[in-house]
């Protein structure tokens, strides 16, 4: 099973939400900017209209004041005349002087260039900022007694309104964006829920829950998807169950064979042990045959026992029974019992530990047996503990293991050299199964001469 970590489903949901927010922000932004621009233009146009109208009035007022007297009117008199008007300020410029209705504004601050008004070609206009305040300056083309009038209209109130509008628009925009984010999140979650559910279902299928199916609750693409997902799961379940059944049948057969063999083997072994006591009474020829018979019975007993052990692994109902093991004593009694005392050189650097002694005996017994059988020489056993692991190496001086055999050496009934008699072909496989039950593993490697099997088991 692959160990790829599932990508959290949040990522796509986030992307979807971000897209939603971006679209909402952009469209709301465009609407806000366009409406602000339109409103601003409209407001300025009406200001403009009023300004031109007021300037025309100012001009005619100045003109009428001029006509009342015989004396030509001066700039100062024009300003004095018009200064009572509240809606605008006046800066009158003549050749001699510049007179302003407001002290803070003089000629310098007036714009140098004007545009011709679209309302009335007799007037020029320009927007200008004086002391940080916006003004619309209108200048009639016509002069009164060669005094040029500059009529200044404050656009401050207008700008204030526009600022307020802008701030309202901005706040509305932010609100829209936040709402879009929220809605996007909810919508994305709702829309992607079938996806999340499907990936969860796929995962639980992968973990072996073959009954897992998706609910089909919508008549849309997701509904169709769920239907085909379920069809796939049906097919998968059917296949896997068929395979598992075939596999179980196979194992049951092997297990049945082993169990059925046990009764006749028990009879064979029991009578063989009676025969063994009588060997001395037989004539040499009969004795030769009887000894061969006994040898084969022993071999068959070992095979059936190992088959039975295998079928127990397959049943998967293995329990541990922990004992305190003293490595030196353990190895010594193992080697003595199996008659390997002079054949194995031991190097033990391990203290007492708690482990399933019978399983450890199976592992070491089978590895040493294998090494003695194939080793052609001295066998070396090294037992060490380091950190949370104990490592036991069994090394022989044999020809080593061909690369092609390496991957199969732990397979059941696999014999690297079929011509060799003896051995059941189950020993290494049983050793590995036992090591795995103890939470460890066995690996094999070739050395310059011989092979080395390494058992690694976790310490409790």
């Amino acid at each position, binding site marked *: 099973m692959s160990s790829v970590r599932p990508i959290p489903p949040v990522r796509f949901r986030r992307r979807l939400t971000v897209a939603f927010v971006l679209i909402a922000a952009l469209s709301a932004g465009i609407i806000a900017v366009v409406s602000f621009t339109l409103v601003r233009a409209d407001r300025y146009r009406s200001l403009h209209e009023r300004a031109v109208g007021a300037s025309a009035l100012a001009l005619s007022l100045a003109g009428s004041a001029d006509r009342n007297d015989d004396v030509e009117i001066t700039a100062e008199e024009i300003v004095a005349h018009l200064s009572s008007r509240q809606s605008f300020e006046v800066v009158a410029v003549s050749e001699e002087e510049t007179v302003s209705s407001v002290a803070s504004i003089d000629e310098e601050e007036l714009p140098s260039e004007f545009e011709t008004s679209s309302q009335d070609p007799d007037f020029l206009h320009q927007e200008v900022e004086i002391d940080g305040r916006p003004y619309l300056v209108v200048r009639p083309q016509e002069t009164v007694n060669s005094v040029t009038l500059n009529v200044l209209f404050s656009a401050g109130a207008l700008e204030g309104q526009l600022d307020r509008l802008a701030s309202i628009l901005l706040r509305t925009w932010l609100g829209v964006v936040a709402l879009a984010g929220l809605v996007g999140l909810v919508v994305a979650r709702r829309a992607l829920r079938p996806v999340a559910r499907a990936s969860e279902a796929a995962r639980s299928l992968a973990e072996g829950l073959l009954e897992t199916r998706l609910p089909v609750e919508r008549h849309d693409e997701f509904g169709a998807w769920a239907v085909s997902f379920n069809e796939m799961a049906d097919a998968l379940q059917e296949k896997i169950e068929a395979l598992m059944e075939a596999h179980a049948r196979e194992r049951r057969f092997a297990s049945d064979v082993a169990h059925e063999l046990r*009764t006749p083997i*028990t*009879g064979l072994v*029991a009578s063989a*042990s009676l025969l063994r006591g009588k060997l001395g009474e037989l004539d040499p020829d009969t004795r030769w045959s009887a000894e061969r018979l006994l040898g084969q019975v022993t071999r068959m007993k070992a095979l059936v026992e190992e088959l039975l052990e295998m079928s127990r692994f397959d049943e998967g109902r293995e329990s541990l029974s922990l*004992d*305190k093991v003293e490595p030196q004593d353990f190895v010594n*009694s193992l080697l003595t019992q199996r008659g390997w005392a002079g054949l194995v050189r031991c190097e033990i650097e391990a203290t007492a530990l708690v482990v399933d002694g*019978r399983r450890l005996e199976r592992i070491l017994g089978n590895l040493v047996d294998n090494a003695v059988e194939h080793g052609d020489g001295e066998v070396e056993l090294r037992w060490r503990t380091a950190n949370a692991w104990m490592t036991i190496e069994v090394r022989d001086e044999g020809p080593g293991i061909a690369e092609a055999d390496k991957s199969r050496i732990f397979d059941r009934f696999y014999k690297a050299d079929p011509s060799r008699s003896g051995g059941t072909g189950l020993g290494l496989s049983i050793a590995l199964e036992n090591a795995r039950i103890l939470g460890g593993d066995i690996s094999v490697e070739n050395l310059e001469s011989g092979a080395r099997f390494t058992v690694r088991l976790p310490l409790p």
Partner: protein
Amino acid sequence: MDRRILFVEDDSDIREIVAHGLENQGFEVAAEGDGRQALVRFHRDPFDAIILDLMLPSLNGLEICRRIRVDSPVPIVMLTARTETADVIAGLEAGADDYVTKPFEIDELIARLRAVLRRTERSVEVDHVDVGDLRIDQGAFKAFRDGAEVNLTTIEFRLLNELARSAGRVMSREVLLETVWGYEYLGDSRIVDMAVKRLRSKIEDDPSNPRLIQTVRGVGYRLES
């Protein structure tokens, strides 16, 4: 001295072969192939030990074991098909003293049989040991609690006796296996655990919370002195 053995096994060939082997070694053997009949036979005739196959028609070995243990401490060796599964545990729990796994050598069966039949060597200097309110009378091969006799099997008595002789000290499963059952170093220590469990049920006030026989994790047992 001829020991009388009841041998219960359903396969007639094995029954014949094993009975023959046992008789060769001087045992007197009564062989039965049916569970119910074996039980009838046991209640009719006296036996020194029973060899019991677990898989039997009409009444299985576990049930026979349990029924015998209701009122008899006779040594029982059971024949099991497997070493791993619940069979062994169930058999030992039902009251068997030891087990032999099929297929087995006759010599091995006889060794196990002799071990469960063997009584503790009569100690020369002391004939009883007192531990708390327990008295272990080695001469009479009996144990008493507050003066009342506790009904123990041979193996249970020997186990208690071994623990009592080293009261206050931890005894490892391996040592107990060797001294009580006569096993070599690499025996099955679950036999010890099960026998201790049975022993506790007979001598402890609360077997699930033992006061006398303490478990020392990963090592063995200790009888509190």
